């Protein structure tokens, strides 16, 4: 299974971005994967077919690039493999 996750530098950015993205894409709120961070909170998960909607939503949302990070997550045999996508994927 493959899905995408956005992590945030802080909780406030996560909550405000979530409210914005909910208006343009189908997203799920989830705790940040332990494989990515042991301590930092809220992530946004979405299916590959939502990627275009989410990227369009992020473009209209003035969140500084360093405040969030996009990952492609592969789940295989009960294990999780996060792969960080470069900034170029976001433009």
């Amino acid at each position: 299974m493959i899905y995408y996750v956005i992590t945030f530098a802080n909780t406030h950015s996560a909550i405000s971005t979530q409210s914005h993205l909910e208006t343009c894409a189908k997203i799920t709120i989830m705790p940040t994967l332990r494989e990515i961070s042991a301590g930092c909170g809220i992530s946004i998960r979405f299916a590959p077919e939502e990627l275009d909607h989410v990227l369009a939503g992020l473009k209209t949302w003035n969140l500084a690039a360093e405040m969030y990070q996009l990952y492609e997550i592969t789940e295989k045999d009960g294990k999780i493999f996060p792969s960080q996508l470069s900034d170029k994927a976001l433009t």
Partner: protein
Amino acid sequence: MKIDARGQNCPIPVIMANKEIEKDTLTFTVLVDNAIAVENLNRLAQSKGYKVETKEIGADFSVSFIGDENSVHGSSTGDSEIVGTAAAAVHTGNWVLFMGKDVIGAGDPVLGGNLIKMYFYTLSQGDCLPEAILFMNDGVKLPSVNDQVVAHLKVLAERGCDILVCGTCLDFYKLTEQLQIGTISNMYDITEKINGAAKVVTL
């Protein structure tokens, strides 16, 4: 090998360190400028079988990861033991979850709403499920109008959790028609579930 992660917010320092671990680097040092990053790096090291030495350098911290071939590769054995323990705990069933609110804790309602979504997300993916989830008062909004939580409750129901929703409360909030998952229940059934459980969890 030195990684300068100063000025990087969580989770970036952990990701940078993890990249080194994935390259099978046995010894490296991460420079960070905050205590939270140090804590997260410590946890990462522990989970991957590395020893850690932390030094304060002025306002910054230097976190050295020290691994040896055996401990680092041995950590995968440790992981499978943990998975084994979790698998043994599949559906203990002898506890119930009581939701009297549609948020977790007291405080900011937006944060509380996010926390509850994340809780049900995590619960639905885990292996230790409650026998029943009981919804009362504001809690009845979760199985009726909270679409994300409804999706997780459907998974939990498929996996065997009994979902009981207070009919009096649904009626009070005029949500009876909007209930998407669960059985409309009453105080007798809900009290029986609470009395019969070894543990009742409220959030």
